[in-house]
């Protein structure tokens, strides 16, 4: 219960942020941090709680983003209506990849590589079929208003992404306290003994990748409403896959707050270096990469591991 109270306090504090500042820059940093945190939370379900490291989470993100963009731009759907469709598609793609790779027993790095290859396949497909707008990408019409999930000011977007992140927090909390979560963590810690104790390893992993895929697709829907544009490299390129795994690893794998903590640290660090050396492209990414190596080397349990 105390953790639920913390989640509520966090939600209230972030929701009040626009009352404290109307600075578009500050709110944009907050939005992008929450967006990265959401990607991280989704990745954390599968990797942190389930022990299955995906290197291709862009496949779910891009599917959600394209589901929203195609349904809105081509079929005139309302943005809210695209959300359940995107979630379902994200889960379906997760189910497909999960069913194939877990059925044939891919583990560890082989699973990581197969997810990466799936993301590449989807990127090439999106680049070559007509209804995704191919290489040109898709523009979504700007229709500010809560009814269209789009807003004239940053505060609206902040509240939407905050709501998604709170859902992510609740899912993580549930994984910590439910029977299913215990199964999933048992599979992570030792697949063979979990199976010996009667856990249906295949089903548990499959459900985890579907849940993770759906939550990642939500981030894709948000991305399309925020930027009103998507193309194959943005949707399925490796940048999203990397962003999804950085936060949880730096914050703390398999924890409720790790993804948010990691995303916050990364984005503040990124902003700080961008302010210092704005003339050099790629410097903030050098720091991200170095941080990734150093964290795994010295703090494999993330920043949260320091506290506990």
């Amino acid at each position: 219960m105390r953790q639920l109270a913390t989640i509520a306090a966090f939600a209230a504090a972030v929701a009040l942020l626009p009352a404290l500042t109307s600075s578009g820059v500050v709110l944009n940093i907050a939005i992008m941090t929450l967006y990265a945190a959401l990607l991280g939370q989704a990745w954390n379900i599968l990797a942190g709680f389930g022990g299955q490291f995906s290197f291709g989470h862009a496949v779910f993100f891009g599917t959600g983003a394209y589901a929203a963009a195609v349904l809105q731009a081509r079929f005139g759907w309302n943005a809210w209506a695209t959300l359940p469709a995107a979630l379902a598609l994200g889960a379906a793609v997760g189910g497909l990849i999960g069913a194939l790779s877990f059925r044939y027993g891919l583990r560890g790095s082989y699973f990581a590589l197969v997810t990466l290859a799936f993301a590449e396949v989807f990127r090439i497909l999106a680049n070559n079929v007509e209804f995704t707008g191919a290489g040109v990408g898709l523009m979504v019409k700007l229709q500010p208003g809560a009814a269209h999930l789009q807003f004239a000011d940053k505060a609206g977007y902040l509240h939407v992404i905050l709501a998604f992140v709170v859902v992510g927090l609740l899912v993580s909390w549930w994984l910590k306290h439910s029977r299913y979560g215990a199964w999933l963590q048992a599979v992570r810690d030792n697949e063979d003994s979990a199976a010996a104790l009667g856990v249906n390893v295949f089903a548990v992993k499959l459900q985890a990748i579907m849940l993770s895929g759906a939550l990642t697709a939500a981030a894709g829907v948000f991305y399309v409403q925020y930027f009103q544009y998507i193309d194959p490299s943005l949707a399925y390129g490796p940048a999203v896959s990397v962003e999804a795994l950085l936060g949880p690893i730096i914050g703390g794998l398999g924890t409720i707050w790790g993804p948010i903590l990691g995303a916050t640290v990364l984005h503040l660090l990124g902003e700080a270096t961008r302010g210092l050396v704005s003339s050099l492209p790629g410097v903030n990414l050098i720091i991200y990469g170095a941080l990734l190596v150093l964290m795994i080397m010295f703090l494999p349990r993330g920043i949260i591991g320091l506290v506990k």
Partner: protein
Amino acid sequence: MLHIINFAHGAALMMALYGVYFLHQKAGLDPYLSLPVMVPAMFAGGYALYRFVVARASHGKDENILLVTLGIAIVLENAALTLWKSDTRTIETGYTFTTVAIGPAMIALPKLVAFGGAALVAALLLAMMRGTDLGRAIRACARERHGARLVGIDVEHVFAMSFGIGLACLGAAACFLLPAYYVNPQVGSGFVLIAFTIVVLGGMGSFAGALLGGLLIGVVESIGGLYLGESLGQIGIFLIFIAVLLFRPQGLFGARA
């Protein structure tokens, strides 16, 4: 061979290509003559990288190696971007556009040399794996890590050596590649998945498999490009990769299921 999946392979190749490029531009060294510089340099870099970074960070887990090498790849790629900007660079040599006629086919000389060089490197590697103590030690570590340690093999040293040898091959590849190719900070990422595909297809740890896998992938890429167009054609490689991982993870020529 040792199930080290190195994500930084592409980035290391990119660095090697830059090395060859700058040796040519600054020191006027012919790409083929930079072999004796690049191969030892890449070997030393690879050995040190494994010893001091990868081995320490991996804590004995496969996934960590993947993540650490991914981090290294991000650092290298963006360091190159910061230092040398994103321009694509090529070098001009006297023989860049020379072609040789073999029967009815006209083949660019640099590509022919690259083919010969690749074959030579493969032969040397094979001889090393078969005939030297190091080769035997590598094979022992691949098969049974703890057993190898028990009979007195310095496992960490062997892993670092094979990592170094892998990067040394990239140094050689860069020397053969650059006269016919180009270099920019992103050049490596295109090679990473293709290299994984070839290795997985041929069977992990099998050299003959890697060679045949390489040929097969080349053919698939060309045929895919011909029938499906330049950009959709690449899909064949990834589909093969997924299919092999799922249905035949030991590879086409791998020994063990």
